[in-house]
């Protein structure tokens, strides 16, 4: 377990440092799009992805997926380059911050449409089932997304077809500026998932040890054919909806405990070295990504022609 905790810590630090540096680059005007940072959810994401197999399992994520891509093992240089709109990006700068695709490490895609990624993960689950790969489909989405038809329909579909699928609801208390309590006015979201016949687990995203253990159990059970599972994990949203947001409601995000700080304290001595190493590494990553060439327009024109565009 201590080893696993260290792994989760290391990955979480990687994500936090990555996001912090992206934020700085954004402040310098070097990031073309608006970025949605995942600060607060790193330990959860790292713990879940630790239990996954990047060859057979497939993950889809929301607009807030920088960390998730990294947690699955995507190359930080490629992710940063994509966010900066560079030729070396995962998708040569075509997708950008909300559209990260790293299928080579099991990160199928992230999405600009709230909830849009969830049905796709059921497709990955179906592939695993039909092709008998032993893999599962996993999807991450927010408390706000939990009210989208795409998400709700997929909960039922996964149960009806008994798909090997894991739903991970990251409840950070907000959908943009709207509180989760207001938007999902009923009982708990866990109860809702239960109502669809899903097996459910509640996780505290700040309890890394518990996250690691429960997720392991869950993934094992799904792989054993015991049906789809729904996890609701509470995580803080330590930043604005997007980086740079200044709206009044934000004061309510302050003062939340930082799961990474808790894990850091738990990890003890080795932590400082990991931070230092990671920072050095990421400084280099960001430097290279910043210096990387912008994409050439040939690929776009090629798509134009292939998609039936006028000569």
């Amino acid at each position: 377990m201590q080893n696993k905790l260290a792994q989760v810590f290391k990955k979480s630090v990687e994500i936090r440092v990555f996001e912090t540096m992206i934020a700085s680059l954004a402040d310098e005007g070097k990031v073309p799009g608006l970025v949605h940072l995942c600060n607060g959810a790193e330990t959860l994401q790292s713990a879940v992805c630790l239990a996954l197999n990047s060859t057979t399992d497939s993950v889809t994520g929301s607009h807030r997926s920088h960390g998730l891509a990294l947690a699955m093992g995507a190359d930080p240089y490629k992710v940063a380059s994509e966010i900066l709109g560079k030729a070396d990006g995962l998708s040569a700068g075509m997708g950008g911050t909300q559209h990260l695709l790293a299928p080579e490490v099991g990160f199928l895609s992230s999405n600009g449409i709230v909830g849009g990624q969830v049905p796709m993960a059921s497709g990955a689950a179906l592939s695993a089932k039909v092709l008998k790969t032993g893999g599962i489909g996993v999807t991450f989405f927010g408390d706000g997304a939990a009210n989208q038809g795409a998400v709700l329909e997929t909960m039922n579909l996964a149960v009806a077809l008994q798909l090997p699928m894991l739903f991970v609801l990251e409840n950070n208390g907000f959908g943009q500026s709207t509180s989760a309590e207001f938007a999902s006015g009923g009982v708990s979201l866990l109860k809702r998932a239960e109502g669809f016949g899903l097996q459910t687990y509640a996780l505290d995203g700040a309890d890394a040890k518990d996250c690691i253990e429960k997720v392991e159990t869950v993934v094992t059970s799904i792989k054993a054919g015991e049906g789809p599972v729904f996890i609701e994990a509470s995580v803080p949203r330590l930043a604005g909806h997007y980086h740079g947001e200044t709206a009044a409601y934000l004061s309510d995000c302050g003062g939340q405990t930082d799961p990474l700080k808790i894990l850091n304290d738990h990890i003890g001595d080795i932590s400082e070295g990991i931070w230092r190493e990671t920072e050095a590494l990421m400084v280099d990553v960001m430097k290279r990504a910043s210096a990387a060439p912008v994409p050439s327009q040939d690929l776009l024109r090629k798509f134009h022609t292939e998609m039936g565009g006028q000569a």
Partner: protein
Amino acid sequence: MMLSISEALNKAHHQLMEADERVIVMGEDIVGGAGLGKGEGLGGVFGVTSGLVDKFGANRVIDTPISETAFVGMGIGSAMTGLKPIVEVMFCDFMGVCFDQIFNQAAKVRLLSGGRISVPMVIRTTLGAGDSSGAMHSQALHGLLATAPGLKVACPSNPADAAGLLKTALEDDDPVILMEHKGLYSLEGEVADDLPPVPFGEGQVIREGCDITIVAVSRMVHVANQVADVLAQGGGEVEIIDPRTIMPLDMNLILKSVQKTGKLVVVDESFGFAEMVISRVSEEGFGYLKAAPKKVIPLHTPIPYAPGLEQEWLPSEAQIVTAVKELVGE
């Protein structure tokens, strides 16, 4: 061999599933009777998928809940991870409920992945008015769908093309919408036993003529043909072009025809396709046009139910005759 469109499509499904284990079929009632614990069901509300489950099993032939967003999205995800799904959306009118998955998700994966992956999925659906199915079971949305970059759209008018386009669609790396006309399922035609694939972006000259070019797809090909028969009796020579796929569109064939005839009528029961053809011919073949191009399309309203109203709404032979005569100057 003579087959109807639904028979040809059914046969193509059998061949495709036989040839490649990765091919799966899913949709509402495509098995039929799911959960009732019986054998053979409906085989789809138009019978196109009948017999598949008996041969290929419920693992690959999947009845779904009435959750188009979820199962079209499942098709997308499965296509991104190794399967080749054929997904049935019963009527194209229902695409409203899953439009995001079609036009934002499926259509964009290729670009968003920088070309590394795509969505080799076929969505089969129906279109077409004429049987009093009302405003939400009768639309033709190929014009609308063709405005979404990243989608390919095929609209067969006969059995050989239906089967052949389905085959090409499944081979294609990109999402393809195959639009089958409800009113043509029982139309019979000669079909080669191996159901040869029909290339995308290659239209067909349905009938040669030098007086005027009519461009039409799906059922409107047949309506135009009837008009051409009538006009032929008066010596009029109508050329009919069926582009078969409207995205990509065989502009070469259309332009060649207009170069010869100098006159263009586009007949269509959707909104947007006729405009697309006319604007491209006007741009790319302006010099060929000897008169203003014309379109014969439905009234700009939702589709009415009462048979007389619906016929009034649909492009009619009489309207086509008028358009042709005005242009040819008889």
